[in-house]
């Protein structure tokens, strides 16, 4: 664990040797995720591995060691998402040959590069020139590209189960890990919400709405605190106002 943290720190600082060591260490885990996509015949394992490494490094840049959640619990979600993006690119409801699918991806990348360099979309002939593909092939690819294609589309041959790409690719376990760390990352804000309440205010709100305890009516809460219903309501209103204000403006995250 200490070695992993050391590698992550060096990777974030741009150390190439550490980055390579990190990738090597997590390659078996990346391969494990890649195995999930082996049923997609149009995907090469090498391509999945490459995307997995991209996802791993993306995670390494974002991972915050303060939260003490295992790195892979966080990174696996990014690895999976990176592979999923490749699946989305290379797996289309429109039936294309393997070669045509790759040509389509090549054309899309050429278009992005052209737009970036020239600040405008390329014409068909400019695309043909930059990709070295014949003009009629480019025009064919553009027409294919415009065909409806959606991750919500049903998988071919899976009509009975009505499974979509998204459903097939979702992994509740990794998403849960991701959600947990996202919640931790915003944890200061969440904790701040109730931190500004007096203890009595906090207990009133939590009891009235049954948060982590048995839900009680204002009358029952009044009896517990020896207060009138109206007084409990006033205290709750004040507490909700404080919570509202705490929610409206998160603690400053500005760092000098």
């Amino acid at each position, binding site marked *: 664990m200490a070695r992993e943290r050391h590698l992550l720190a060096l990777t*974030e600082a741009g150390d190439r040797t550490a980055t390579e060591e990190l990738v090597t260490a997590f390659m078996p885990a990346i391969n494990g995720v890649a195995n999930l996509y082996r049923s997609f015949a149009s995907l090469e394992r090498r391509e999945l591995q490459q995307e997995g490494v991209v996802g791993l490094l993306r995670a390494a840049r974002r991972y915050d060691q303060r939260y003490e959640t295992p790195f892979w619990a966080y990174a696996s979600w990014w690895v999976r998402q990176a592979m999923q993006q490749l699946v989305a690119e290379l797996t289309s409801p429109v039936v294309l040959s393997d070669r045509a699918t790759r040509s389509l991806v090549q054309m899309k990348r050429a*278009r992005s590069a052209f737009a970036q360099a020239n*600040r*405008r979309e390329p014409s068909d002939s400019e695309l043909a020139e930059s990709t070295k593909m014949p003009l009629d092939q480019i025009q064919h690819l553009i027409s294919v590209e415009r065909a409806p294609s959606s991750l919500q589309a049903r998988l071919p041959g899976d009509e009975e189960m009505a499974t979509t790409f998204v459903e097939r690719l979702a992994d509740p376990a990794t998403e849960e890990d991701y959600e947990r760390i996202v919640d931790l*990352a*915003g944890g200061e804000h969440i904790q701040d919400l109730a931190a500004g309440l007096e203890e009595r205010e906090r207990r009133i*709100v939590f009891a009235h709405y*049954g948060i*982590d305890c048995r839900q009680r009516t204002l009358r029952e809460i009044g009896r517990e605190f020896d207060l009138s219903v109206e007084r409990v309501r006033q205290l709750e209103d004040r507490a909700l106002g404080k919570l509202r204000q705490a929610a409206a403006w998160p603690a400053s*995250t500005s760092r000098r």
Partner: protein
Amino acid sequence: MSQPELRHTAFVYSSDAEYVEAAADFLRAGLEGGEGALVAAPRDRQALIRRALGSVSEEVGFLDLAAVADRPARTLAAQYAALYERLRRFPAVRLLVGVEPGPAQDGWLDWLGYEASLERALAAMPVWALCGYDARRTPAPMLDAVLRGHPALSGGARLGSPRADLTEILRERTPLPRALPDLRTVAAGEGPEALREQLGAALAAQGVGGSRALETVLAANEAILNAFGHGEPPVEVRLGRVGNLVVCEVVDQGPGFDDPLIGFDPPGEPGGQAPGMWVVRQLVKKLEAFPSDARFTVRLWL
């Protein structure tokens, strides 16, 4: 020089070196002109800029933008707070935004919402926002929106003319909310307090506790008050789980609103009174608002 209004420029780069050069030049020019400087970017971009600026980076504020994909409004709030603070000390501020869409399939829409909100919220402020897009990692639809929707592009002409409105692009590209048949009505037809109580009971029954339960009650309460104040009763609250998220709908009989950026406009000085939908945005991961069957639904994802 002080800018009388927002300048909003995009630049697309394809290498870290290109990014650092443009970013550092932009920030240095502002600092030399007596302007404030703020960098809102993921941590790896921040590190590159710190290194490039050297000791000058001490004069620059840094905000971590990695959370935009999770709660865009919370990031915007932190950014506005930092901007307001600098505008009290400087005649103008240069804001460098390092854009990196999250990996979710429609994650780039969060960024587009962020960009559109930024443009609307800062329209009358002496701020120059330079938004950097990495051509290697930016999804094609996002790049298209950037090239068509930014008022200015660093070093080139805009794609298409006249300029497309970022909010309109967002409206066009946002998919229609999908039906969620598993949601159940947990409260209907009563006042805000009773609706909150019943929502609290339903959350506990579904095993939702802690901060998520508190946030759901608070966010739903704002949507409920909004429905009573601007919509038409009876108001209904629906609840369920979708994947790992809690989904809460507040439904009223009114016409609702048609603004994809509702709740993103900053409510003035930090710490001041905030509108209900701003509070909702701060609490939720995603907000959808849509009419259906002569009713209007505000759907909250937490």
